């Protein structure tokens, strides 16, 4: 089954929640909605589920319009941030509840409950009550209940937010593996770029109720259509420098001058935005034509294997993500190197004009 959204909009009290969204979710696909809080992720999922009615546009299941049909007629599961289980019945009965409602035969219920429970590693807990479980186990129970009934559309609304960072890592991997073998459409809302990368599938970037970009995760990640997409899908956000290209050189903020080599030589003279991911900025030059910029250290954050260093000068600030531990004092002068083969280039209207080639020689 596929789900198609056509010019979908929703307005509440004159405020736009969703604006003119066009999307097609294919059968068996896993779709991540990535956006900041209030970007419209939950609103969009509620429209897909039929919990809200769009003010404009249409919704099709397999080409059949369902815009006004009630929720009960659609086969949908939803998983929320909060762990929602029935507290007065066992985990087993919690998972079985949607099947009991659908009047599935007892033997079949038993088989499916056990199968789903083992997929989510909660088989030993089936006879316990939800409130006796840890947060991660409770959310696993809620997920099992959503997955047991073979829904055609499963919606996840930031389901891992309230869990430990380590548990998130594990559940994320489990979910990704689970959806590889299922035929339903999965939709997963998150605010974290790294979560979208880890989950894979299709990524749709949402901002202020609009779709900024949508496509296979790596395609979106590697070819952000504009500066907004680049910033949304990069953690920490992609560094953006305003530059002017003349016939002979490139100038950042009328401050730092560089020669035009390789890809840059192809740019027509004019104003551009140059984007570089924090992980591609280096402290030592790797090529002769790396762009060298003098900065000062504003703050250096160490996370075990990596250092996030915030650097700034009078004109702009950047974040660098460096492998290993680099300790610098605040205010220390430092030179950073931007490899030309890792630069994204956007025109003055912030639309992508050049994307760095993948693979091969490494920048940082």
């Amino acid at each position, binding site marked *: 089954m596929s789900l198609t959204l056509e010019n979908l909009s929703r307005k509440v009290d004159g405020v736009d929640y969703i604006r003119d969204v066009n999307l097609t979710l294919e059968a068996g696909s896993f779709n991540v909605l990535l956006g*900041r*809080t*209030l970007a419209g992720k939950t609103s969009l999922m509620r429209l897909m589920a039929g919990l809200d009615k769009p003010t404009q546009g249409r919704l099709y299941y397999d080409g059949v319009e369902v815009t006004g049909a009630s929720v009960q007629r659609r086969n949908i599961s939803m998983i929320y941030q909060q762990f929602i289980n029935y507290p007065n019945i066992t985990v087993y009965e919690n998972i079985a509840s949607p099947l009991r409602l659908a009047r599935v035969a007892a033997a079949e219920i038993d088989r499916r409950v056990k199968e789903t429970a083992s997929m989510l590693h909660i088989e030993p807990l089936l006879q316990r009550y939800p409130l006796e479980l*840890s*947060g991660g186990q409770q959310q696993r129970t809620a997920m099992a209940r959503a997955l047991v009934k073979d829904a055609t559309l499963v919606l996840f609304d930031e389901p891992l*937010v*309230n*869990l*430990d*960072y*380590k*548990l998130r*890592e594990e559940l994320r991997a489990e979910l990704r593996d689970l959806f590889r073998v299922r035929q339903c459409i999965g939709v997963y809302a998150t*605010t*974290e*770029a*790294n979560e979208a*990368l*880890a989950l*894979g599938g299709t990524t749709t970037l949402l901002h202020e109720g609009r779709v900024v970009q949508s496509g296979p995760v*790596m395609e979106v*990640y590697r070819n952000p259509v504009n500066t907004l997409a680049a910033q949304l899908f*990069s*953690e*920490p*956000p992609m560094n953006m420098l305003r530059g002017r290209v003349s016939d002979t050189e490139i100038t950042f903020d009328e401050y730092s001058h560089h020669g035009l080599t390789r890809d840059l030589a192809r740019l027509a003279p004019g104003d551009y935005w140059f984007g570089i*991911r924090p*992980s591609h900025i280096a402290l030592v030059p790797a090529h002769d034509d790396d762009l060298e910029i003098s900065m000062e250290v504003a*703050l250096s*954050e*160490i*996370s*075990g*294997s990596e250092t*996030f260093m*915030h650097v700034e000068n009078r004109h702009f600030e950047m974040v660098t*993500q460096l*492998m290993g*531990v680099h300790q610098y004092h*605040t205010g220390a002068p430092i030179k950073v190197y931007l490899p030309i083969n890792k630069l994204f280039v956007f025109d003055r209207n912030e639309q992508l004009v050049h994307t760095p080639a*993948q*693979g*091969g*020689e*490494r920048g940082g």
Partner: protein
Amino acid sequence: MAEIQLKSLAHSYSESPAGPEDYAIRQLDHVWHKGGAYALLGPSGCGKSTMLNIISGLVQPSEGEVLFDGQRVNELSPRERNIAQVFQFPVVYDSMTVFENLAFPLKNNKVPGARIQTRVAEIAEILEIADKLHKKARNLTADEKQKVSMGRGLVREDVTAILFDEPLTVIDPALKWKLRRKLKQIHEQFDITMVYVTHDQLEASTFADKIAVMYDGQIVQFGTPIELFEHPNHTFVGYFIGSPGMNLIDVERSADGVSFGAVRVALQEWQIERLQGLASNNIKIGIRPEFIELASGAAEGSYQAEVLDMEDLGTYKIITVRLGTQQLQVRMHEDFEAGIGSRVHLSFPPQWTMLYVDEFLVQEQS
């Protein structure tokens, strides 16, 4: 400001604890030095929030002592201990304006009006809520409410310490970056003892100079972010720190080192020596995904492994390989390529191969 010392501290929520499993905190000694920026890191249920509440006085420990600058404070209320604490979910006085919220702790401390004005303005400026000062707190977004909660903790100048209990849970990731940086700057500026509870290793290591990792009611390691990463004292630290965590492999003693299946792992001299002095057979080796070396050709001391999976995470890739009976994860740079099912050669650099006996690190004797 004070040095905070915990002496043979233990706490159980049950009235008559039967065994160690009834304890949220088990027999623990620890010192938080004056003016430090510390993190208390661990999974949920490890006892970290309990410890924070014991320091602030919201919870009375069942055993042991809490000392501020050597003085026993067990019997003192949070009010008397003069400690600021920021909670996981925003707590604002919603009938008050943002200004009144921030001024509240100062008014309670009888700070003169003029000082309140400047101090509130200063903190509001740092937290970027200066333009919201006259809004009613109930009309704020969750982000803003949490900033107000934090502001109420930061606004006091004379506090013994500021405790944070997962303060950034409700904050948007984009903003988390900024706020963490703000907290660090505030610490550098005011030099107050700060203890920050979190389950997120990045949050802990970007905020704190030193991190206490809690597991099962105990502090299993107290060290700098680098120490936790490079020399995890306990297998749990290895697993919990790092993304993905450390590869931990059960091994057996063999003639000149340890082995699993047919794979023999070369150890350093001192590791073998120390291992011979220990009786336990609960032996593991640990190596971080970042430190395993992968090559397409064989080299001396390398093992052949099969690539099972490759996960592209944008800035890096996680390669899952099978080596003998074990699955290992290797972290490679983003441009690394290897076909699934293909053969690669891995090696474990000896300086990064850790040896664990009974879950604790075997350390070099100095």
